[in-house]
């Protein structure tokens, strides 16, 4: 069988910079194959964008990287996704651990119906952090760190200044863009290594979008970032690498500059110049 995708040279220069390596990934929903033999290397501390027309499998692909597809009945995954060299679909893998290491921000902001503080603290609490006044179940080692971590996460998500005086307010009182940054803060709080963004700006206005884009640029210093986007300008603006997906196949994967200036495939060029999609 000719493996079309492997014919591309991986743009990632050095093997040791690879954080995630997707190998021969195939995904089916019931009997429909939605991802076909995808190979992709994700470099650490870089932003990798996944673009492609609607229904090409972008969201499916990104949701596989922290095993969120596990909760979809009838989804079947074949192939390997190596996170620091270890297959997250291996038999000895604890899904919960994978998701702690690979955080996710969803298309529609989905804060919990709790206070701003509790939203960010949620992931910390379930991982054993306790508030300063709370009782100590695990020997009090992490006591008192909760507030610090919540503050730091909100700062990292560029939201602290706007909410520091009203941490007890409901998360639903925030604007759409603020809610999405709250979700980013919530994901950052548990200090993942990789953060997945599944069209994080699709429901936001241009100002809020600009803030999130700026934020993503900053976050790549600390995290490896993968972003699915519908918006090609966005991919061009913020990503270092860009993967073009169509009908479940990886058509082209290269440095973003190259994809947008001199794509190797005709179909990529047609898509990014807006001839279809």
């Amino acid at each position, binding site marked *: 069988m000719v493996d079309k995708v492997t014919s591309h040279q991986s743009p990632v220069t050095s093997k040791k910079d690879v954080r995630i390596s997707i190998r021969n990934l195939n995904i089916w929903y019931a009997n429909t194959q939605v991802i076909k033999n995808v190979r992709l290397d994700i470099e650490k501390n870089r932003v990798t964008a996944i673009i492609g027309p609607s229904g090409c499998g972008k969201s499916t692909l990104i949701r596989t990287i922290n095993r969120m597809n596990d909760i979809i009945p009838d989804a079947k995954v074949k192939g390997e996704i190596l996170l620091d060299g270890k297959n997250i679909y291996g038999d000895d893998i604890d899904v919960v651990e994978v*998701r702690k290491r690979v955080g996710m921000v969803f298309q529609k902001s989905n804060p919990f119906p709790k206070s701003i503080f509790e939203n960010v603290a949620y992931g910390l609490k379930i991982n054993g952090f306790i508030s300063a006044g709370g009782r100590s179940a695990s020997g009090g080692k992490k006591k008192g760190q909760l507030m610090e971590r919540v503050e730091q996460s909100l700062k990292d998500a560029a939201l602290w200044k706007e909410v520091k005086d009203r941490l007890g307010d409901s998360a639903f009182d925030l604007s759409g863009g603020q809610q999405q940054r709250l979700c980013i803060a919530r994901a950052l709080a548990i200090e993942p290594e990789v953060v997945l963004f599944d069209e994080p700006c699709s429901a936001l206005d241009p100002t809020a979008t600009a803030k999130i884009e700026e934020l993503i640029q900053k976050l790549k210093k600390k995290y490896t970032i993968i972003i699915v986007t519908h918006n090609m300008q966005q991919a061009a603006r913020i990503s270092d690498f860009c993967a073009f997906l169509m009908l479940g196949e990886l058509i082209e994967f290269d440095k973003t500059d190259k994809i947008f200036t001199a794509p190797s495939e005709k179909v990529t060029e047609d898509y990014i110049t807006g001839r279809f999609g």
Partner: protein
Amino acid sequence: MISRKLKEYIGFGILRLATLIILLALFAILYFVAVNGIKVINWQFLTQMPHSGMTAGGILPAILGTFYLVVCAICFALPLGVAAAIYLTEYAKQGKLIRIIRIGINNLAGVPSVVFGLFGLAVFVKFFGFGISILSGGLTLGILILPTIIRASEEALLVVPQSFREASLALGATKWQTIRKVVLPNAISGMLTGSILGIGRAAGETAPILFTAVTFYTMRLPRSIFSEVQALPYHIYALMTEGTHPETQIPVAYGTALVLVFLVLGIDSIAIVIRNRFRRRKKW
């Protein structure tokens, strides 16, 4: 040709009329019971034991009996029903088996209540040897209201947005943590609505407790869950069908009915207050 406007007017008129008829029926019942029952209601009626062959004195044992039966039914059915609903919606792999279980539960809701009474007699009274008691009657009523509670709980769980579950799981929460900390707090108000409906039904049913819990007359108030009790609906039934002094029994029956209606409304409003408190916190 009638104009579209007129059609709309007639359409809404019919809908409004239907609503009015229902309201009218409801108020007619309440009015009828109140007018006939209010005469016998006084403090003694609510707080004293009956005497003179049920024609005088109070109905305290029946009030307490119904209260105990309902509490027993809820204590049994609520945890069980909620647990089953959580399993069915959150854990079980959706497939043929789960569909059959659901059909079974729905059919349970359609079983005539007297059949539950016979079941309770055979299983709780005889087989487990609980005798005619609060426990037997409460368990029987519990089974009767299980389908209501399960269905309401399932619906309450299903309206919790999937995005909350995803957010929690993506933060490295286990399924159990997700259910306990995110799903349940947001479903609890709906679950309480289900139990409200259940309470109303449990308090008003006669047939299921007929062979399992009630007696027409006891000298003493119930002392344990193994005591047999008087209960309001059965008391009404007995007053209307037995005894030799209908002219004094019938007003007592209406008084009892009024008390029953208000007891159910009272329990319901407690649950509604709790539910509203939870609901105020949720905003999506």
